[in-house]
């Protein structure tokens, strides 16, 4: 069935993380009508889930929430959250996207975001938003700063007890909501689909995620975040305050056998940042970073790295070969010293794997835009305009075009917005 509901915009932005928000704001500010389509229940992407950001140590929310808020209230920007992109193709002069609004089982117009449904719901579900370190309810708002402030009813874990429906003061619960398909037609599109962390579960060297207190860097972000699961730094196996914390750099990056051959570009800096935050909250803890090369190349980054060294964070040039389960919740890190002195082992209370970045979206069978061997979208002009793809009128920004940090992402998004705006004024002149 072809949906008859067609919405027209100047630009379709695919992905509502920091890259998409910035591109949308830069286009909206020029008067273009923009649609942001986001797969998650909230905009904000990975950035809103972080603790603080390097090298300024601003809280991530302090920078993200205003941009989220600005986009959601912008007269030229419309948000479509909790939506799947089914297809994205050229049509005529522009672009046509088929989109499915997934059911929240909550009426977005009636709901006032009071969270009464969440408080009354009796089913607890492990909360991926909190690194699975605590639980949410089967109906819940994804996180406190989410936009929109609408709960999602998780059908997988709902027992249809009806308590949320009874409690809701505005009768917003709708157990019968169905997916709705619609079409967005636009003159241009910007792909800002970001990244996922390489999953630990495929890395047998690091225990496939089964060794207690070996966590990934995104889980550490949650532990350090203001709304985190523990509101302090504890290790997940038993609630102990860790005394010795290790970072394993290039976990799954720069290593074909373990995952990805390329450098993920942000891991050195986020590990240093996390180490600094940890040494702030646990001043007596030993913090060790096992690394191959420290890549602190951005503005102010090298100074940040030198500060971390001065704070007493230990940097050991070594490649971690494997991690094993130790006694009493510790993890044993086995590493090869890069000075040629051979294999050594060390016991740590908590080990953080600086996992690399992989693309957050695969265009295969959805969109004919081409990917590179690294699986990120191909930039056809990496020098004069890295945001250009092989599809006319379709641009890419942020990690969708290869790993990069927030600063570079925001700049690239501005650049993509500029290219999209130029494309539209040029085609306007031709018409």
């Amino acid at each position: 069935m072809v949906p008859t509901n067609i919405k027209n915009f100047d630009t379709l932005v695919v992905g509502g993380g920091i890259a998409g928000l910035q591109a949308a704001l830069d286009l909206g500010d020029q008067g273009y009508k923009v649609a942001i389509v986001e797969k998650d229940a909230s905009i904000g992407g990975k950035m809103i889930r972080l603790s603080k950001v390097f090298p300024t140590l601003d809280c991530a929310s302090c920078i993200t929430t205003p941009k989220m808020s600005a986009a959601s209230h912008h007269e030229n920007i419309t948000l479509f959250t909790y939506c799947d992109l089914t297809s994205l193709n050229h049509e005529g002069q522009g672009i046509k996207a088929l989109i499915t609004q997934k059911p929240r089982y909550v009426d977005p117009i009636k709901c006032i975001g009071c969270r009464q449904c969440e408080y009354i719901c009796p089913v607890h579900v492990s909360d991926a938003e909190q690194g699975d370190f605590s639980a949410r309810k089967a109906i819940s708002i994804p996180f406190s700063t989410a936009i929109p402030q609408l709960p999602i009813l998780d059908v997988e874990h709902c027992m249809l007890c009806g308590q949320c429906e009874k409690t809701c003061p505005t009768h917003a619960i709708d157990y019968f909501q169905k997916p709705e398909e619609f079409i967005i037609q636009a003159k241009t599109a910007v792909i800002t689909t970001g990244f996922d962390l390489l999953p630990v579960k495929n890395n047998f060297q690091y225990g496939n995620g089964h060794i207690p207190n070996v966590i990934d860097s995104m889980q550490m972000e949650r532990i350090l975040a203001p709304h985190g699961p523990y509101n302090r730094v504890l290790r997940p196996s038993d609630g102990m305050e860790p005394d010795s914390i290790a970072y394993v750099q290039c976990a799954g990056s720069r290593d074909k056998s373990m995952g990805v051959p390329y450098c993920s570009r942000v891991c050195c800096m986020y590990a240093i940042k996390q180490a600094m935050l940890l040494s702030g909250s646990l001043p007596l803890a030993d913090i060790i970073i096992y690394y191959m090369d420290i890549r602190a190349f951005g503005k102010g980054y090298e100074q940040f790295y030198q500060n971390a060294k001065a704070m007493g964070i230990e940097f050991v040039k070594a490649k971690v070969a494997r991690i094993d389960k130790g006694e009493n919740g510790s993890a044993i890190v086995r590493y090869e010293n890069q000075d040629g002195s051979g294999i050594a082992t060390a016991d740590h209370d908590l080990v953080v794997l600086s996992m690399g970045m992989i693309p957050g979206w695969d265009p295969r069978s959805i969109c004919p835009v081409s990917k590179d061997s690294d699986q990120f979208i191909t930039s056809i002009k990496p020098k004069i305009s890295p945001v250009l793809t092989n599809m006319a009128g379709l641009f890419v920004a942020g990690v969708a075009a290869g790993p990069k940090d927030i600063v570079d992402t925001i700049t690239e998004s501005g650049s993509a917005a500029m290219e999209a705006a130029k494309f539209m004024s040029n085609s306007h002149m031709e018409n």
Partner: protein
Amino acid sequence: MKNPDNDKEKEAKKAAMKTLRAQRKDLIASASSRMKTQKKDIKAIKEFLKGKKATIPDIAEGIDMPKDETLWYIATMKKYGQIVEAEKEGAFFNYSLNEPEKTQEKEEV
């Protein structure tokens, strides 16, 4: 005042819910059993903490639950305002039940 249309609507809704429940039978069954276990676990934690404070290893031992699971519950109950953190003891923190007047099904802050 009785509205026959309203009644009819209610009947229809009831029937639709019944169909939906039938469709989701398996999911509902597993969610219900999970909920029951959770209820039991939370009750055990609350009972253990009645009138005292304890660390994660203490609670875990006291109610015979794995320590990581205990922490998961405590973190969740803290989030929903049923438990508060108390002072530190060695490398662990103590937890106690939230005072009754403050107990609200509400996320802190």
